[in-house]
């Protein structure tokens, strides 16, 4: 069953991105894990954990369709939402060494959670984060506590003008890292994977697929040809695995199980 999660605070953190603080008792999530967020009579959707401390769960929710739209319009303190989880395998915690985080949009959230939980510092952590524009930026100031942060925007309104993988490319050309963590649009992950080809950095990246059960039973979220379930075998996968996933960057499995070409905007 779900745990009741009362909205403690809800604010628009950026354009189309709602930051939710939910009071809810959960088994302690690890960075990269997600929860299923149920809005009674509306729907249930997967959301990455952006933080969990003192019984307060933090989520960043991009407005997309029915459920996220409803939340954007109705979330105010006191509203009861419902959560189950946390689910999935999160990131391997970095043990020393130099770390590069590559985030796109709300994909920055789980990376922030990772940086915070791992207690990273800008000596060991560089973060390249990309957004559509300066109005879409989230978590950058907070992330600076743990990492040396570089920002990119699609329209050049803040930081590097261009996709975030270009920032990553520049960083990678000047430096060797021990681990690279990526979360964001799947095309971004494909680019990062390409950047790391032939290099020694261990990559871990988080994926999204349509989900139902979230516990590895229904098969809705499976990735071909390895038969990996995003909800249980992921959502975080290693670079070695990602390279063998033919679906990556190409195919999205619809609720009926058919695959359609992955739209560029499939991820927040």
């Amino acid at each position, binding site marked *: 069953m779900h745990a009741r999660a009362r909205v403690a605070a809800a604010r628009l953190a950026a354009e189309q991105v709602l930051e939710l603080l939910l009071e809810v008792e959960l088994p302690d999530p690890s960075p990269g894990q997600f929860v299923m967020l149920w809005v009674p009579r509306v729907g249930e959707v997967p959301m990455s954990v952006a933080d969990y401390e003192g019984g307060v769960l933090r989520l960043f929710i991009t407005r997309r369709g029915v459920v996220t739209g409803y939340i954007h319009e109705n979330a105010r303190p006191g509203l009861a939402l419902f959560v189950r989880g946390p689910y999935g395998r999160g990131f391997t915690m970095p043990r020393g060494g130099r770390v590069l985080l590559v985030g796109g949009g709300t994909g920055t959230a789980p990376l922030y959670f990772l940086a915070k939980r791992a207690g990273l510092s800008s000596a060991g952590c560089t973060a390249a984060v990309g957004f559509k524009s300066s109005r879409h930026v989230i978590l950058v100031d907070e992330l600076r506590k743990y990492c040396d942060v570089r920002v990119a925007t699609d329209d050049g309104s803040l930081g590097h003008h261009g996709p975030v993988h270009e920032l990553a490319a520049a960083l990678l050309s000047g430096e060797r890292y021990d681990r690279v963590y990526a979360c964001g649009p799947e095309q971004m992950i494909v680019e990062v994977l390409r950047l790391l080809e032939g290099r020694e950095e261990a990559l871990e990246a988080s994926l999204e697929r349509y989900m139902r059960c979230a*516990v590895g*039973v229904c098969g809705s979220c499976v990735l071909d040809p390895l038969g990996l379930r995003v909800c249980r075998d992921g959502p975080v996968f290693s670079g070695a695995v990602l390279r063998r996933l033919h679906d990556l960057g190409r195919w999205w499995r619809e609720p009926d*199980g*058919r695959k359609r070409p992955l739209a560029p905007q499939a991820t927040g």
Partner: protein
Amino acid sequence: MLEVEVAGLRLRNPTVLASGVLGVSASLAKRVEEAGAGAFTTKTVTREPRRGYMNPTFVVLEHGYLNAVGLANPGIEHFCQELREMRESLSIPVILSVGGGSAEELVEVARRGVECGAQAVELNVSCPHVRGMGVELGHRADEVAGAVGEIRRLGVPVLVKLSVHHDYLRLAEACLDAGASGFTAINTVRGMAIDIYARKPVLSNVYGGYSGPAIRPIAVRVVYELYEAFPGVPIIGVGGVDGWEAALELILAGASAVGVGSAIAEKDLAIFEEIVRGLKEYMEREGFSSIKELVGLAHRS
């Protein structure tokens, strides 16, 4: 010592992946085989694609699980490709679960499925949460028997999946008369859950199918009754198999093989090996040399 034959299919061990659970792709089928399963049942496939219901479609309860996925599937035409790949990459038998709103539809899906490589057909006439394609169909024993007869002519074994919501002994008899090769029992039990803080049903569909350890005593009874009524007719026992003890209980009741479904939520694919190892050790300890000796043993005095 664990090899069994079920309705003409040869299984390396008596574990079967139950329908609707991971049975959507050849890639998952391969993983299930590698995990040790003896046979693989596909998700129920219908003529047309179905998106299924809105989430929540799955609820984790204290003693079991509820689902109302709504027979989501890509439709037989699209699934054909997955079936071909399954047959290419798997060495365990592939059972195609077939759904539909009428005998005609069942036969059509089965025919195409067999063309694409299905080695056996399981007729799902017992889904408790899809109007027109579920349990109602099982109430029309003659129609189901009709479909059995036609599919039988395709030359593959036909299993009929039964539900406690049917007059299952009567349905079973009608299907046997029409040439059914065996039964799968049971499908999920109609149930629902209400969240006491939301004060609303959790499933978007309100009602769903109840599975998991909680329903095992119900499944054991149906299997026991079927074995008693139709000795010698193979049964795949499904319902609440969450380890080797549970598997064994269904086998003792009369199942030649056992389906594993929602327990994967708790134990993941490791459950197949766990069951196989547990059964082996039990047989060694208790002095049985073939699992067949255990099938239906609880009936003998």
